[in-house]
């Protein structure tokens, strides 16, 4: 079954002021669809974290959002340096963010675990020097 609504967003590199633009847009979309507010909240948090990762670590990237009858599928992908050890990256508190980013209040090492916590299905694929792809699925019911 193909998606009913499909949107693509650019995620600019190193621009914190624009990080969250895509997730904010998706939130508006879901609100107009009348999706349950709790599900909207989970979606926007998961997507925002993924977006932020692409900004901080991936030199920017793209987000593709598809809405189906029963679920939302989000793919956030970048062509950045990739993750050497995904298991380690998933650990709460582990972060490779540089100091200046931590000083801004980002890079606390909670991003990936936060995405996992808020999504129903979460898959991450990464290859060194090629980039990272984060797949998030959230069911509407």
């Amino acid at each position, binding site marked *: 079954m193909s998606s009913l*609504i499909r*949107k693509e967003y650019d995620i600019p590199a190193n621009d914190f002021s624009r990080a969250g633009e895509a997730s904010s847009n998706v939130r*508006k979309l879901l609100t*107009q*669809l*009348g999706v349950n507010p*709790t599900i909207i*909240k989970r979606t926007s948090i998961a997507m*925002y974290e993924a977006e932020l990762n692409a900004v901080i670590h991936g030199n920017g990237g793209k987000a593709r959002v598809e809405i189906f009858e029963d679920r939302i599928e989000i793919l956030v992908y970048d062509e950045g340096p990739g993750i050497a050890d995904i298991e380690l990256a998933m650990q709460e508190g582990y972060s490779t963010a540089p100091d200046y980013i931590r000083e801004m209040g980002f890079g606390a090492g909670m991003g990936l675990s936060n995405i996992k916590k808020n999504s129903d299905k979460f898959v991450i694929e990464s290859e060194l020097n090629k980039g990272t792809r984060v797949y998030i699925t959230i069911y509407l019911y």
Partner: protein
Amino acid sequence: MAEYFHSVTLEKEKCRGCTNCIKHCPTEAIRVRNGKAMIINERCIDCGECIRVCPYHAKKAVTDPLSVMNEYEFRVALPAPSLYGQFGKEYSRERILKGLTELGFDWVFEVARAAEIVSDATRHILKSGKVRKPLISSACPAVVRLIQVRFPNLINNILKLESPMEVAARIAKQTVVSEKNIPAEKVGVFFISPCAAKVTSVKAPYEKKESSVNGVFSIKDIHIKLMEKMKNIPPDCDCELVSSGAYGVGWAGSGGECAALERPKTLAVHGIHNVIAIFEEIVEEKLKDVDFVEALSCIEGCLGGPLTAVNPFVAKTNLKCQVNRAKSKDFSSENTAADYQDLLWTKDMEYKPILKLDENVMKAMIKMQKLEEINDGLPGLDCGACGSPNCRALAEDIVRGLAFETDCIFKLREKVSDLADQMKAFEHIYRTKQDGSGRGKTNDG
């Protein structure tokens, strides 16, 4: 009471159908149709942005006429703290409060004092730790309604305490009833308001069944009259009506409520569009380490209310003077959290999903598909000439059956030029045919 009461209304004759109000409305609640603005009732939060931006003064706030005072035997004025910012430093708070009694009020109870009570209750609530953080102030009714229609996830973050206005009204009435022995129905308490949203919250409250306030007057309506009365009152007069300290007076401006909480992790935001930006950060859990958010719809808080008389920045300077002059910080109390039970809301707030395209999610998705398709075809200039605030809103209106694609002047122009092309083509065929038959005739002849 009708389902929706709004203080903000349109004076149709004055409206020229420009795009100022539709472009500034934070909930996209206004459209221009047939050359006149119209407010979509269920979307309006009475913030008063449109009153401020309308160059023809076609938007106004309905307040009560001063004559409603005549319906009561004993009349109490409840001045909003912002009233103090309307006068220069030669007008002390004593002078202002005394002036109010000359305007026909039998007594004055400062809303600033009630604000201090609300602040004390808030301090207890924050200390208890049993709240969802950040706690969001409920002092501004426009902001509370904004949450109700646009931020359902923040409803549980609202500080569900009555506003200083309501607290003041209740205390004032109780005091008069018990001290003067006058029946409650003969006591009229009147709020002197900087804004329209307060009028709405009295006529159609969301936090309880019925407001304790009997009428709302606008600061604008009494400003000049009060100035006149104050002329005859010496600047250094004494006045036993002063009951609030610096904290209560400070509530009038942005940051005042935060200051009264005496906590480090607070945030004060003012201006409805800035409030929206902060709320988005809270929803996405970007805002960390903040316990309390003071959010006021108007720039510079209530001092910038659409019903105030002087420039908000001038008022801010005036207010600073009043704050510095206050004799105490705030009222001293040994109250505990239990003493504030009666301040809690007695009604809970429900989410009003005004943006929903359809009751049924599946149908909403089909409408959304169509909306996206229409939106892609629109010029994206957001000019507002169609009467909707932006291209996307027009696409939404079309999907909802409230507008047509040709309401967009660019779409209309395309259509007209297509038609012209078709006409030309048709004319060409017609001419060729006529020429052809004409020649035929000549040949025949």
